[in-house]
């Protein structure tokens, strides 16, 4: 079932509350930008899960304990000059605005550990490339629309590349395997 909420923060809070129930009948709890997808472990469990979710109070789960991840960035991305040109800012100003903003992971998607980070300076909000690159290197720090993100591993991608980091954001041997999940607070620090 897909539960609609007013905004991303409400969706994160609701998802955290459902997850905190640790109910075996719930297989997946996936926060989106304004929704939470709750997947039952089997079709015959759907009615029980619907009942369970119906009693969850959005926001009842404490939101004060968001983990913070600091990401050191070398601002030498391929699109840095283009971003400066498109925004009319200097390269230094682009770097300053990108690293001084505070970000929070709105939701995870596209690839394992790929967090959509909300909080980008409005002056840096640009459309993605019209033709995606076939191969964006792992660790690329990028922006597109209202979001910033870090590519956890190399993949095709159409976001504008500002720099790169050595921080490992997805590691199947780690617990949890992803450093970023909905609600994680992120800061970029120039290196």
């Amino acid at each position, binding site marked *: *079932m*897909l*539960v*609609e909420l007013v905004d991303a923060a409400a969706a994160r809070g609701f*998802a955290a509350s459902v*997850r905190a129930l640790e109910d075996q009948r719930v*297989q*997946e*709890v*996936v*926060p*989106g*930008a*304004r*929704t*939470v*997808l709750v*997947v039952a472990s089997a*079709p015959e469990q*759907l009615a029980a899960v*619907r009942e369970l*979710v*119906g009693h969850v109070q959005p926001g009842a789960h404490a939101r004060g304990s968001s983990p913070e991840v600091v990401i050191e960035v070398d601002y030498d991305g391929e699109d840095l000059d283009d971003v400066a040109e498109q925004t009319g800012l200097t390269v230094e100003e682009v770097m300053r605005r990108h690293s001084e903003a505070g970000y929070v992971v709105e*939701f*995870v*998607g*596209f*690839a*394992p*550990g*790929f967090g*959509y980070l909300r909080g980008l300076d409005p002056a840096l909000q640009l459309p993605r490339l019209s033709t995606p690159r076939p191969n964006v290197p792992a660790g690329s720090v990028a922006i597109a629309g209202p979001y910033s993100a870090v590519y956890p*591993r190399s993949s095709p991608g159409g976001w504008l590349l500002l720099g790169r980091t050595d921080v490992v954001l*997805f590691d*199947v041997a780690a617990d*949890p*395997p*992803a450093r970023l*999940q*909905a609600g994680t607070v992120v800061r970029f620090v120039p290196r």
Partner: protein
Amino acid sequence: MIEVVEVGGSVLVEDLGRPGWSHLGVSPSGAADRGALVAANRALGNPVGAAALEVTGAATFRVDADLVIALSGARVEVALDGTPTRASVLAAPAGTVVSLSAPRWGLRSYLAVAGGLDVAPVLGSRSTDVLSGLGPAPLQPGDRVAVLPAAAGLPTRERDEARPPSGALVMLDASTGPRADWLADAGELYARPWQISALADRVGTRLEGEPLERSMTAELPSEGVLTGSVQVPPSGLPVILGPDHPVTGGYPVVAVLTATASDVLAQLRAGTTVRFRRAGASLVRR
């Protein structure tokens, strides 16, 4: 050990996937035709989710231990050391060459081994996820895969599923999706015939036909999606998500296939005509 000798299409290791990690961006993955994987495992007395080979196109293997194997899914012609056999459970002594023809109908066959395949699990699953690259790489000639000791389970036989021949009209049961109201007329999805396009893999299957008209053209804020979700991008041509789908999507989901229909879809070739048929609601919006 089982050694891959020839690969005509693709040979992947698949089990029932890695559910429970979608919130971290990890797709459920697993066998595209889950029912067929389970049937092959049951025929051997394996745990239902034991890892097996998901094979498209012709393929040849060599076993280097005495193994019992089972085949399910797409109908293929099987030969042991060149001798055709009609059995679906086969004893293959060490050294036997097992060859599978390209399917007579269907797309994906499953070759299970008593005990199940032993590759290193990633996040609780041995499945290859072609989108994210998690799990073992697609198998190539020369690759060898270990086999777990056979369990003491009793073999059980599935009822033979009647499967539609390729090229005929195939019905896909689908529940109403959470964004059905983004279509000008949600009934059109069910009323029109659709063709399976050549753009079909474990991530998604694009359909061809008369484009659907959307009543809402705004961009949908990204939200969680399921295997079997029928998305309608701005082109109006539906895309049905497979097991390696991205966990969130920005296109409205107007219907969701039943688990059985997702299995059927996994066996349909390009050019097959399908129609959607309404199933009971399974995805509701609150």
